[in-house]
């Protein structure tokens, strides 16, 4: 429900309760004032009639349309000289309808004689008044609903304009553009605060992102150069006159430098992935990439005497082309590295998922934990344990679902492609042909 609708409903709800209450108050006030006016008038008439009687003039039975009754009394003057009475007449013979009469009785002592003067007048009937009020309530409500409904919308457009503007700017905001959030000025205190907060927050985010990016870039550039120096010096050193023991030491150092360089590159890549530097998406041939990767690793597969069975369909996915390569080569090289001599790898790629299963020693930690950085099963101490973390990050950024299971001596990794994305569907024609003749590569030699 929109903000303006909420305000409108609350406002109308309050009015629906308040308007009848106010009308009751209005009713009693009007009635009271009208009666008071009538009493004043009747009292004046009574006084006039009394003076006429005093002057010995025979008063007429009607003055200003008010009926006058003059009754001489023999009893002494009562303490209360004025008495107000209201009388409901169901059917007035003159008016032919119900009527309310107001009777004002005054007692006078004129020339030693007591008189009772009663003036009778028609007043507003409560029913008429109530009916009038009821109509006015209904009209008020109808008008209110319309007026509030329309004006609230118009006014909210005007008042919330800066809010809507802010919202659209936030939705367009992207850290990577490095463009500061510019919000329109507003006079509303709350929006001022909101805008101020958002500007501060986004500026900080941009700053943090920039410094993180700078750090990653610096780390990769500035660390690679010293590594390069060490490597080149070691290369030169290894060519000088050295003894066996020294050669062993140099060899170990080279190994360490190699590993450092690898870790560093992997971490830099991971950070780039997390910073979403690879969110350019285009259609890339997953199947083609898979075939190429398998060809690249052919020698390794051959060296380890591994049997490969692959059913690869020309699946297309929407993602950064560099990521497909990293994803596939990481998974395939993992399947080879963690395999045993004379082992087995099965690769199935279709429009739904990629499944790579390979033989290997059982994992020593829960398989899901292997997606975390530097988590590795002890099978291969040389591995740095970032490969699967990178794979996971790529899958996350491409909205793929990845699972790792160990079932019946087989490590199975499944990458499920999102089904709703039509781009992940394979090219229908090619698929048909391939389904009939699945590519089977056995023991790629």
């Amino acid at each position: 429900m929109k903000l303006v609708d909420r305000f409108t409903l609350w406002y109308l709800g309050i009015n629906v309760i308040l308007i009848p209450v106010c009308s009751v108050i209005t009713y009693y006030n009007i009635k009271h004032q009208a009666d008071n006016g009538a009493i004043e008038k009747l009292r004046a008439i009574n006084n006039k009639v009394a003076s006429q009687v005093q002057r010995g003039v025979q008063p007429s039975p009607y003055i200003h349309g008010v009926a006058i009754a003059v009754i001489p009394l023999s009893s002494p003057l009562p303490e209360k000289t004025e008495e107000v009475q209201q009388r409901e007449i169901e059917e007035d013979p003159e008016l032919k309808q119900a009527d309310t009469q107001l009777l004002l009785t005054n007692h006078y002592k004129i020339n030693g004689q007591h008189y009772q003067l009663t003036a009778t007048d028609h007043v507003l009937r409560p029913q008429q008044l109530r009916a009038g009020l009821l109509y006015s309530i209904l009209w008020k409500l109808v008008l209110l609903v319309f007026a509030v409904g329309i004006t609230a919308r118009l006014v909210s457009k005007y008042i919330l304009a800066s809010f809507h503007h802010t919202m659209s700017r936030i939705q367009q905001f992207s850290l990577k553009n490095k463009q500061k959030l510019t919000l329109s000025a507003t006079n509303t205190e709350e929006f001022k605060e909101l805008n101020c907060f958002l500007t501060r927050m986004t500026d900080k985010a941009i700053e943090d992102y920039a410094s993180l990016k700078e750090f990653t870039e610096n780390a990769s550039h500035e660390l690679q150069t010293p590594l390069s120096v060490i490597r080149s010096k070691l290369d030169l050193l290894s060519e000088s006159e050295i003894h066996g023991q020294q050669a062993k030491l140099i060899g170990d150092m080279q190994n360490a430098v190699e590993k450092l360089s690898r870790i560093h590159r992997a971490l830099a890549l991971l950070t780039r992935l997390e910073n979403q530097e690879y969110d350019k998406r285009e259609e890339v041939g997953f199947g083609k990439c898979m075939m190429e990767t398998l060809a690249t690793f052919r020698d390794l597969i051959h060296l380890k005497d591994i049997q490969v069975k692959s059913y690869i369909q020309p699946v297309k996915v929407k993602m950064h082309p560099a990521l497909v390569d990293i994803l596939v080569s990481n998974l395939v090289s993992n399947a080879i590295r963690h395999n045993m001599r004379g082992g087995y790898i099965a690769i199935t790629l279709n429009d739904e998922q990629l499944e790579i299963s390979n033989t290997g020693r059982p994992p020593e930690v829960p398989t899901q934990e292997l997606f975390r950085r530097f988590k590795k099963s002890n099978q291969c101490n040389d591995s740095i344990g970032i490969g699967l973390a990178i794979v996971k990050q790529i899958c996350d950024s491409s909205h793929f679902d990845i699972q790792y299971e160990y079932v019946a001596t087989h490590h199975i990794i499944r990458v499920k492609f999102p089904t709703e994305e039509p781009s992940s569907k394979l090219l229908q024609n090619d698929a048909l042909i391939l389904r009939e003749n699945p590519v089977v590569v056995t023991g790629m030699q």
Partner: protein
Amino acid sequence: MKVLLIEDNEELASSIHDFLAREGYICEVSYNITDAQDRLVSFQYDCILLDIMLPDGNGLHLLSFIRKENIQSSILIISAKNSLDDKIMGLDEGADDYLTKPFHLPELHARLKAIYRRKKLNGSNIIIFNEICLNTDTLEATVNDQLLDITRKEFELLLYFVVNKNRVLSRQSIAAHLWGDYTDNLSNFDFVYQHVKNIRKKISAAQGTDYISTVYGLGYKFNTSKQ
């Protein structure tokens, strides 16, 4: 071969300089773009080794300068920037190859040789060392005119050995040369041992001399003094 090295890190520059000098190359070093431009307009070089992160600007700007001045040198970029975009940009701007830091000196040498072969020797794609003959076009290797049945990787490895004669080649540098970026995932260098073993076996089978000797703890060496 005359090489201009443009690299701001003096340590690395001196390493490369020493390495190339030992190979008999004439190697001059520039530490910034201005100096490099002065040298490029005054002298001729066969190859330029260019770092793109230089104190007085981006080395890629030098590529357009080289194009404008119509300098006919080959260009090999050596950079710590290893993102795909940088590589593509460098190669599009006219560089012949792109090598990311940290690299092994023998790898640099091999690439340098390859560029030189491609550009200067105009199709001279046959490298001969004694009885070994390598055709870089057809990827065929012969020993005593006998064709070896070797895989592509084995060919590349043999070429790497011949290009870096009498140098100690570590297992790491061989892996980096053969597998490039994929070595990131391959920490195990067993396959280098396998490939070397295969080459030795195949050369010996063709009555060739086994020039490859093992350097304990380090790697291998293509020893030309072996008879």
